[in-house]
C-alpha cells in the first residue's frame, strides 16, 4: 500500500517551529558553518514542501554526512571537548533527518530527537529561563506529535496547540512528584562537561593585570545567603587561594607536594586555628569555576565530605567545580591562625627571587624597618606610605618592566589591587617579615528583595597576610590604604566611572545600574534565579534525603524506595493487563498452524506472505519469485484451501486424510528450507516447531 508521502503542511510547520526552538539556544555556541548548514537544510526542506526542490539524492546525502563528521571533529579537536562535538553531531543528524523525512516514521524520529535535544540543553544551562524555554519547546514538540498523530480533518493549529498544552500541563504535577521522590542515582559513566573557553575567574597565578582584567566582567561568581545579618562590607574577604611564591613578576602557589588533594588529605592539620566569638553561618552557591578551590570567609568550617582545608586554611575540593556547587559554611571572623609558624612555612613566607631586580625597594624596606619599632608598626608604616604618597587606584595602570616592584613604587605609582598586594608583600618579605598574597573576592552586592549577597567577577581582589609574632596571620589590605571606599563600598562605586570597567559585559544589565527601574529589574531577576538555584537546581541526593526524612521520618529512603517500587510495578502490571487483554493470541486451527509455520520459513527465505494476501495469491507469487518451490507450494496450497475453505466439514472433524497429507507436504518443504540445526528440531518434535 502506498503510504501517504506528502507531509501535512500543519505538521511540517509544527515540526519546524519545534526544531527552531530546540536548536536556537545552541546556535550561538555552534560554529558558524554549522549554523549556516542548519539554515540551509531548513530552507531546502521548505522548498521541498513547496514543490520547488527535490529531495536530496543518495550520493548527495552520503556526501553531506561523510563531510560533516570529519569537519566537526576538526572543528572541535582544538577545544578538546567531546561533549560539544557530540551535541553538534546530534543537531546535524536531526536537521539531516528533517531534510530527508518523507513518512510518518521519519517525522516521529525527528520528534524524538527534538525531545532529546531539549534535554541536552540542560547540560549547558539550568537557569529558570532555560527551564521555561524547555517547557515551551516541549509543548511545541508535543504539538507537532499531536498534529502528526491526528487525522488531518481534526487537525487545526489551535486544537493541536490546545491539546499539547493540556498534555504538558497534565504532565507537570507528575513531573514534580517524580522530581521530588525518584531516587537520584549517580550515573555509571562520567558526565562529560562542556568546556567554556572564555571562562573568567580567579586563577592560581597573580601577575600585574590579571585581576584588573576580571573587573571587566559582570559575570556572577557566587551568591551567599547569611543565616543572620550580613556582616559589614569590610569584613567580606572571600578567601580563595594563598600565593606565596614570587618569581619577580608573578605570584604562584609554591611548588609543593601538598598541592595534591590526597596529600592535603593525608596531612590534614589537627589544629584548626583558634576560633573566637560566635560564627556567621551562610550558604554559598558557587558558579562553576573549573578550579578545585572554593571560597569562604575566614576562618571557615565546613562539613562536606570531599572538601578539605589545607595548611593555608584555604578550601579545596577533590574535583574541579564544573557545576553549580552549594555548600554551607560557618566562619569565625574573629580568629587566630598559626600562632606558631613552622620553620618550613616561615621559610616559604620569606621567599624572594634569587636574582635581585628591585634594589630600591629593598633599600626602602630596610630603612623603613629601622625606623619602626616592631613588625606591626612597620606594616602600618608601609600602608601609610601608600596612603600619603601619590599612589593611584586605577583599572588601567601603565605596563611594568622587569623591575616591577621598583617601577611601581617609585615611578608609575598607579595600580590595581594586585600591584598593591604584590609590592606590600614584597616590602614585608624584604624586611624579613613572613607575608603572603591571598586572592579571592572582596565585598558583594546585597539583593534587597531576597537579602542575599551577590559576588561578581569584578569583586575579585588580592590582599596580603602578614605573620606577626603572637598574633599569627593578620590580614592587611594595602588597597584599602589607597582607595578605602573599594573596601567599604565595593568595586563598582570606585571603578564605575573608569574606562574598562565591565568592558567585557557590554550587554550586562549591570552597566545600567544607575537607571533605577532597570537596576531593580536586574536585582529581581537575579533573586528569581537565585531562588531557582537554591530550591530546584541544587536539589540533589543529600537535599532529597533531608526532605524525605522530614516527610517520612527515619529510614525514609528505604521506605520510599519500597513504596515507589511497589507503585511503579503495580502501575505497569495493570497497564500491561489492560493493554494485553485486547490482543489475546488468536487461536488457529491445526492446519493453519502448520501453514503459518511454513510461512515463517518462507519469510526467512525472502518471500514473506503479506498480511492481506490469500493463500492462492501467495502461492502464485512464490511460484514467480522462487520457481523451484512452485510445485510443492501449489500442492500445499491446494490441500490447504480444500481443507479450510472447501466443503464445510462435519462438526469437529476435518478430513483426516487431507490433513495428514498437508502435514507431510509442509514438513518436506520446510525440511528443504531450513538450516541443518533447525532441521534436527523439526525431525525430533515435528509438532512443536
Amino acid at each position, binding site marked *: *500500500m502506498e503510504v501517504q508521502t506528502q507531509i501535512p503542511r500543519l505538521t511540517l510547520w509544527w515540526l519546524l517551529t519545534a526544531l527552531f526552538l530546540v536548536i536556537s539556544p545552541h546556535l550561538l555556541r555552534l560554529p558558524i558553518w554549522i549554523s549556516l548548514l542548519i539554515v540551509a537544510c531548513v530552507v531546502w526542506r521548505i522548498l521541498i514542501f513547496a514543490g520547488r526542490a527535490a529531495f536530496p539524492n543518495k550520493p548527495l546525502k552520503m556526501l553531506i554526512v561523510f563531510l560533516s563528521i570529519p569537519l566537526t571533529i576538526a572543528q572541535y579537536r582544538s577545544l578538546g571537548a567531546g561533549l560539544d562535538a557530540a551535541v553538534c553531531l546530534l543537531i546535524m543528524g536531526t536537521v539531516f533527518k528533517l531534510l530527508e523525512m518523507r513518512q510518518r516514521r521519519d517525522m516521529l524520529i525527528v520528534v524524538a530527537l527534538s525531545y532529546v535535544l531539549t534535554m541536552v540543553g540542560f547540560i549547558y544551562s539550568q537557569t529558570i529561563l532555560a527551564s521555561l524555554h524547555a517547557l515551551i519547546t516541549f509543548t511545541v514538540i508535543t504539538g507537532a506529535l499531536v498534529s502528526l498523530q491526528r487525522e488531518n*480533518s481534526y487537525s487545526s493549529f489551535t486544537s493541536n496547540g490546545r491539546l499539547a498544552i493540556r498534555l504538558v500541563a497534565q504532565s507537570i504535577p507528575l513531573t514534580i512528584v517524580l522530581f521530588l521522590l525518584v531516587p537520584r542515582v549517580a550515573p555509571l559513566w562520567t558526565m562529560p562537561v562542556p568546556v567554556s573557553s572564555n571562562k573568567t575567574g580567579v586563577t592560581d597565578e597573580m601577575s600585574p593585570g590579571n585581576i584588573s582584567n576580571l573587573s571587566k566582567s559582570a559575570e556572577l561568581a557566587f551568591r551567599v545567603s547569611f543565616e543572620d545579618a550580613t556582616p559589614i562590607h569590610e569584613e567580606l574577604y572571600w578567601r580563595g587561594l594563598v600565593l606565596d611564591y614570587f618569581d619577580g613578576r608573578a605570584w604562584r602557589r609554591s611548588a609543593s607536594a601538598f598541592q595534591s588533594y590526597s596529600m592535603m588529605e593525608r596531612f590534614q592539620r589537627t589544629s584548626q586555628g583558634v576560633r573566637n566569638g560566635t560564627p556567621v553561618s551562610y550558604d554559598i552557591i558557587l558558579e562553576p569555576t573549573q578550579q578545585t578551590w572554593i571560597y569562604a570567609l575566614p576562618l571557615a568550617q565546613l562539613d562536606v565530605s570531599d572538601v578539605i582545608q589545607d595548611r593555608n586554611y584555604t578550601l579545596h575540593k577533590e574535583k574541579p567545580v564544573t557545576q553549580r556547587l552549594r555548600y554551607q559554611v560557618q566562619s569565625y571572623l574573629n580568629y587566630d591562625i598559626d600562632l606558631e609558624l613552622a620553620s618550613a612555612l616561615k621559610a616559604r613566607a620569606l621567599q624572594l627571587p634569587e636574582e635581585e631586580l628591585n634594589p630600591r625597594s629593598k633599600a626602602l624596606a630596610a630603612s623603613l624597618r629601622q625606623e619602626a619599632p616592631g613588625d606591626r608598626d612597620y606594616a602600618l608604616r608601609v600602608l601609610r606610605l601608600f596612603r600619603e604618597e601619590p599612589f593611584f587606584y586605577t583599572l588601567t595602570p601603565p605596563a611594568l618592566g622587569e623591575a616591577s616592584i621598583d617601577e611601581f613604587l617609585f615611578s608609575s605609582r598607579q595600580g590595581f589591587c594586585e600591584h598593591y598586594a604584590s609590592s606590600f608583600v614584597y616590602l614585608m618579605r624584604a624586611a624579613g617579615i613572613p607575608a603572603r598574597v591571598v586572592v579571592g573576592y572582596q565585598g558583594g552586592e546585597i539583593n534587597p528583595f531576597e537579602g542575599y549577597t551577590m559576588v561578581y567577577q569584578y569583586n575579585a581582589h588580592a590582599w596580603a597576610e602578614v605573620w606577626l609574632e603572637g598574633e599569627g596571620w593578620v590580614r592587611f589590605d594595602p588597597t584599602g590604604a589607597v582607595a578605602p571606599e573599594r573596601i567599604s563600598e565595593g568595586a563598582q562605586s570606585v571603578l564605575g566611572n573608569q574606562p574598562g570597567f565591565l568592558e567585557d559585559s557590554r550587554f550586562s544589565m549591570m552597566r545600567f545600574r544607575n537607571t533605577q527601574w532597570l537596576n531593580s529589574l536586574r536585582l529581581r531577576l537575579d533573586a528569581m534565579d537565585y531562588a531557582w538555584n537554591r530550591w530546584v537546581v541544587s536539589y540533589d541526593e543529600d537535599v532529597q534525603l533531608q526532605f524525605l526524612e522530614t516527610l517520612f521520618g527515619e529510614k525514609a529512603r528505604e521506605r520510599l524506595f519500597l513504596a515507589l517500587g511497589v507503585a511503579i510495578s503495580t502501575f505497569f502490571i495493570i497497564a500491561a493487563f489492560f493493554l494485553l487483554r485486547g490482543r489475546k493470541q488468536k487461536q488457529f486451527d491445526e492446519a493453519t498452524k502448520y501453514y503459518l509455520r511454513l510461512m515463517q520459513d518462507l519469510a526467512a527465505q525472502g518471500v514473506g506472505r503479506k*498480511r*492481506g494476501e*490469500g493463500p492462492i495469491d501467495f502461492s502464485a507469487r512464490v511460484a514467480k519469485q522462487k520457481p523451484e518451490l512452485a510445485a510443492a507450494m501449489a500442492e500445499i496450497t491446494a490441500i490447504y484451501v480444500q481443507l479450510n*475453505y472447501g466443503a464445510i466439514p462435519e462438526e469437529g472433524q476435518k478430513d483426516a486424510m487431507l490433513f495428514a497429507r498437508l502435514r507431510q507436504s509442509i514438513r518436506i518443504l520446510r525440511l528443504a528450507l531450513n538450516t541443518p540445526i533447525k532441521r534436527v528440531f523439526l525431525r525430533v518434535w515435528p509438532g512443536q516447531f
Partner: protein
Amino acid sequence: MQERIQAAVDEVGTVLLGKERQIRLAICCLIAGGHLLIEDLPGMGKTTLAHALARVFGLDFNRIQFTSDLLPADILGVSIFDQATSGFSFHPGPIFSQLILADEINRTTPKTQSALLEAMEEGQVSVEGATRALPSPFFVIATQNPVSLAGTFPLPESQLDRFLMRIGIGYPDPKAERELLERGADADRGAAVQQMLSVDDLTSMREQAGQVGVSPLLLDYLQRIVAYTRENEAFHFGLSPRGSIAVVRAARTWAYMEGRQHAVPEDVQAILPAVVEHRLRASSDTEGRTGAALVKRLLAEVDVF
C-alpha cells in the same frame, strides 16, 4: 457452465476492449441478482457495457436518459383516459423491462431517483394505487459521471447501498486503444454482440452460485474486515450488515464463475472493491471519494488468517 460464462465475457470483450475484469465483475453482479452502478467519465464505454450485457444475456432492454426535469411518471408509466373503453388504461413506462440502463442517474431530482430506487428494492412499482410487478429478472444498470457535479443530485448513502456493485471502467490500455482506433467509429457497437446466455441460464447460474460453500474460516476473515471498518477511526462509518451480506453473495458468485465449489479469500478480495467502495467513506471525506483507498487498506491490513 464456466466455459459459457467465459464465452459471454469474451463476447462482451469484443466491444469493450481490454476490460475483462470489469466485464467479469458486471456479469458477476448480474448473476448475483444485484444492480450495478457504473461510474466513470463520459465516453469511457459505460453505455456500451450496459448495452452489451443486455444483448449477451438476451434481456429486453430500455434506456432512460435521466435529466433534471424527468418525473417519476416518465419512468413508471401513466394511466391515460381511453375514449374507446371510457376508462383509464395504464401505459407502462420504460421501467417495465428486464434490464434498465439508467443513464446519468445523478442528473435527475431525488424524487425521480427514489422512484427508480424503490422499484429496484421492491421489484414492483405502485402507480395510482395499483401495485404492478416488474418483469423478472429485473436489473438496473445505472451510470453516473463522477466529475462536473454542477447541477446534479448525488445519490445519498442509503440509495448507493441498493447497488450491489459499483465499478469504474478506466482508460483502455494503449494496445486496446490502438485496436479501437483502427477499427473505426462504429456507432452501435453494443448491437453487434451476440446472445450467449439466456434468462433461464441466468436463473440456474444464480441457483448454483448460491450453493457455493463458504467455510467458517472465510466468514472469520469477512468478519475481521467488517470489524475493521467499524473500529478503525479512519472510517466514517462501518460496513452495514446489508453490505456484508452483499460481499458474501458476490464472493460466492465470483467463486462460481472461477469454477470453484467453495469461496476462498481471493474471491472476497476480488469483489471487495466493487462491492464495498461505494459503501465506505473516510472520516475526513465529505464527498465520498475515498472508498477506493479505504478498500486498499482493508485488503492490505486485515489478516487473511
